[in-house]
């Protein structure tokens, strides 16, 4: 009784007709800051995953001896390499800061209490605490990137 009604009506109606699909993830601005934050969390998560794979590849060059390792390090010393590192700094800062906010919200914390909504309705869960959390994550990411840029591009 408490099972999903698969194979039955639900299955029949699993019509993808008119689902927005991945397209629905684009244009996040139309639904406010929380949607932008969601979109960035996903984008930075995937970006970090790509970096992580690249990073394993990079450091595994150490097994081929010090020369291979130095050659690999040279790659990161190019302007392109610096730009990628800068992006990684921004992505990881935003992803961790916003990720900590999400750990709380997913547990129902910091969202306010249900009450008696009055017109014009203002959703409690989209409160200023959440919005400030998002802005703090964005500002931290920007600050980290600025500092990173000042270090990385100092010599050039």
């Amino acid at each position: 009784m408490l099972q999903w009604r698969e194979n039955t009506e639900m299955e029949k109606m699993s019509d993808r007709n008119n689902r927005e699909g991945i397209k629905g993830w684009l244009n996040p601005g139309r639904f406010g800051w929380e949607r932008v934050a969601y979109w960035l969390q996903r984008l930075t998560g995937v970006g970090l995953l790509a970096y992580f794979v690249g990073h394993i590849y990079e450091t595994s060059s150490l097994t081929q001896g010090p020369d291979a390792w130095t050659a690999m390090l040279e790659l990161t010393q190019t302007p392109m390499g610096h730009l990628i590192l800068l992006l990684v700094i921004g992505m990881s800062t935003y992803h961790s800061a916003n990720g900590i906010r999400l750990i709380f919200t997913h547990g129902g914390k910091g969202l306010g209490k249900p009450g008696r909504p009055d017109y014009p309705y203002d959703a409690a869960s989209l409160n200023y605490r959440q919005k400030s959390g998002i802005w703090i994550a964005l500002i931290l990411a920007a600050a980290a990137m600025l500092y990173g840029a000042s270090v990385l591009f100092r010599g050039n």
Partner: protein
Amino acid sequence: MTEQIIEKIEKIEKKHEKKETLRDSIVLKVYRANRLAGEPGRYDSVEVPVQRWTTVLDALLHAKAYKDPSIAIRYSCRMASCGSCGMKINGIPRLACYTKVSEMEGSTITIEPLANFPHLRDLVTDFSQFFLHHRNMQPYVQNEHADIKDREKLSEFVQKPEDLDRFLQFSYCIKCGLCYSACPTVATDTKFPGPQALSQAYRYFIDNRDSAGKGRTNIVDDKHGIWRCHFAGSCSSVCPKGVDPALGIQLLRGHLLGFSKNEKKIADLQERLNKN
């Protein structure tokens, strides 16, 4: 107390104050297609006269009455109560009867059927899957001690105002499907119950007349269930009734994750209280 409430409402009102654009007429760019007949979609432009208070639904009905009777729309109450007139207005899911033309910018309004619902014709979509998700949540109070069917004399539960406040907001849902249409997870996962159904699961879970707590969390604890919510908050931003489905989902997930405990004392029956 009253003054504080008025102050709060005034503050919210100010925040939501929309720029008014007054015009004599507006062009509606309406999405047209009969899916069953296999027609490809197209947009028809219809110009209709408007007043300050004209809603998008009024404008559409004017177009239907005087310009093109073949436009298919679904509506009933015209007052944001029945939940039938949901459509995408300038790209955002809204109730046509709850959206004034004067709130919209530009000289045209683009009106399309709700996304994430199978499309039937023009602005009309199929809600069966959405309702099925709702039904899957067993949206009724379950309490083995209160089998009203087999009782000779009916009794009622005794609830305190605080008990009511825990779920009242979620019970204001009119099943208009705007949240379902705005949700990025619904956009890609047909088995995900969506914000409406999940917030209803919480509505009954936290109701202290209901004793099916564990059974209810079991329903949503599924690979396509509550864990697929990433709190993008779009459901709450489009909800026309202040239900705040995202809040209900996160609160319910708090219980599943052990962040919160459901220490509700099951409400007593009036009849039993009288006996003691």
